[in-house]
């Protein structure tokens, strides 16, 4: 991709102009006007890369399309167009058994530990399920692996026969993490892994995620709306708005000197747990645009104070400004 910032490490995952549209079935389509097919453009042309052993934070508010992007990367939803390169291979064309084999390298941890575990499965079955899906091609015994992984994430040894409802929220999320680890993947997509957890448990899980990243050499695609969490977890940040990426760069640079006007507004509305630093309110007028009918040109222009004429007509592409990628017509 032209203009891509040099990654520190080798590239593991690359998305090229990824799009995911959901057709809106509005009753019986009018045969007289077939072109009126509405689509929800959840992800509308996204390109980024994740390096090996690197953590990319995907930040956006609700409606930005970040969850859909995560699912598309995992091929849980087939992308409408675009490519996803994993270790150099385009995975969007994989089907059937090839796709299944690919899944060993990419795993997922979802937001809600209550709904991401089957309430009728015991812990050892939940964690071993990915292993059992690939039974023929495994080396060490399943039980051993399960207990190793369970220990690695801090689950109690005697818990293997228990059901999810017997565990606390934090422990359930640990089970989900163990399940993601058990196939020794290279990439884990984490979709708001701590948003549904209590504040006092959140730090435990974040520390755990950092520890296993180092221990197992994993790459993370860390999806969240919480800027503080992503600050702690990510090497680089990609900011998403209305289905497109507006800024990508190293965490420090983006958070300390945001360039895109949306990023500026976003960062400045994040409350600090310190009464001495009040919020400098950059109030955004307007609302998050509808995914059915996004604004023309730059999607952010209706809410941007610095909108120019060109912002209304032409969509800005990601270009290099000050060592990172920004999608804006302005130069600073």
């Amino acid at each position, binding site marked *: 991709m032209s203009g891509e910032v040099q990654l520190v490490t080798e590239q593991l995952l690359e998305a090229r102009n990824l799009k995911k549209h959901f057709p809106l079935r509005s009753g019986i389509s009018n045969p007289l006007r077939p072109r009126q097919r509405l689509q929800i453009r959840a992800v509308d042309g996204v390109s980024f890369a994740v390096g090996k052993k690197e*953590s990319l934070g995907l930040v956006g*508010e*609700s409606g930005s399309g970040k969850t859909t992007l995560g699912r598309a990367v995992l091929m849980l939803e087939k992308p409408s167009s675009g490519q996803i390169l994993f270790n150099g291979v385009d995975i969007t064309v994989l089907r059937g058994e090839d796709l299944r084999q690919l899944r060993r390298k990419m795993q997922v941890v979802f937001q809600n530990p209550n709904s991401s575990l089957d309430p009728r499965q015991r812990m050892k079955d939940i964690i071993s399920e990915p292993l059992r899906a690939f039974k023929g091609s495994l080396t060490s015994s399943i039980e051993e692996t399960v207990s190793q992984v369970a220990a690695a994430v801090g689950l109690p040894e005697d818990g293997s026969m228990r059901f999810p409802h017997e565990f*606390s*929220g*934090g*422990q359930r999320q640990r089970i989900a993490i163990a399940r993601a680890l058990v196939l020794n993947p290279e990439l884990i997509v984490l979709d708001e892994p701590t948003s549904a957890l*209590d*504040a*006092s*448990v*959140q*730090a*435990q899980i*974040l*520390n755990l995620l*950092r520890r296993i990243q180092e221990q197992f050499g994993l790459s993370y695609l860390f999806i969240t*709306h919480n*800027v*503080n*969490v992503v*600050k*702690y*977890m*990510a*090497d680089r940040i990609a900011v998403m708005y209305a289905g497109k990426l507006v800024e990508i760069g190293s*965490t*420090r640079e983006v958070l300390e000197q945001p360039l895109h006007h949306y990023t500026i*507004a*976003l960062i*400045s*509305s*994040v*409350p*600090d*747990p*310190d*009464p*001495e630093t*009040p*919020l400098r*309110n950059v*109030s*955004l*007028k307007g*609302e*998050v645009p509808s995914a059915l009918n996004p604004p023309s040109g730059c999607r952010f222009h209706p809410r941007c104070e610095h909108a120019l004429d060109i912002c209304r007509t032409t969509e800005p592409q990601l270009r290099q400004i000050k060592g990172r990628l920004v999608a804006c017509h302005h130069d600073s």
Partner: protein
Amino acid sequence: MERDSRKLLSVRHLETRYRVANHIVIALNGVDLDVSRAKIVAIVGESACGKTTLGLSIINLLPKPAAQIAGGEILFEGTDILSLDFDKMTKLRGTKIGMIFQDPMSSLDPVYTVGEQITEAIDVREGRMSPRPKGPFRRYEAMRDYRRSHGYSRLLGDGSSRIHEKRKYSEEATDALKRVQIADPERVLAKYPHELSGGMAQRVMIAQALIQKPSLLIADEPTSALDVTTQAEVLGLMRNLRDEIDSSIMFITHDLAVAAQVADRVAVMYAGEMVEIATVKDIFREPIHPYTEGLIRSFPRQYKDEGRLEAISGDVPDLRSPPPGCKFHPRCKYVLERCSKEPPKLLDAGPDHKAACPVRCSS
């Protein structure tokens, strides 16, 4: 304990119990709290700490018969409102004490426009509409009153031909929306709740609650369902309201950072008990209770390469079988033998600073 007449709300030893399946859960275990006029007090805590129960107990909207107030008193402007009968409490609710909830979409009636709902609140205040019609034909009477006051000629059946009529909403409704910083009030008044964004809907909720000019507004996680950019605006709005209208706000939240930005005083709850109360500056600068301290320290603030977060070990206790003595002691790093024996009380830890930890208060 002196009954300070300047205090708007004084909760003393409030105990609320829930019946869950066949356990009795003590949701509030002797909670004390004071709220002064025109101040924002943040109630901070995690899930099942009792903060929502506290709000519901004050306004007496607990789900009965599952929940019951088992003891204590709640003094509002000097009167113990727990002793009020149903009608008096109903008059109090919505007029002097208002409440707004977490999800604005489910708190607004989807079949009425914003204007109609605001007008309804105004009508209740003006007495044109009784908040609770009595008698066997209550529903009928309520409908009849409503329609009479709005000039509908037919008693039953909505004038569905009026759907496309442009209703004129009163000046006051427009002002109500202006007060919550809604830019184009006339347009919003004509909209239905599903046409509003989350932030807008929450503002409408606040506007509705403010019609009665309550002295106390209980806000139960009002920004948790909103985006962070919208949240910042709503927080600013709340601070303005405190200054303009002189209302006190009891802001219930699980987010410490939000509390830091909006509150004058902070009360921290854990497992049904009040563990620390202080001004917002003191709480963050010098947290006394180990839970508060742990919570503040475990808030992610640093970059990835700047070292680890200090996490609190363990999990939130199950209130069906809580730990003996201090409920936090299994997770506490200052724990002593006595912590598992005596349940701690709120002790003085400094000027206007109370904490329920004998270990730390003595040092």
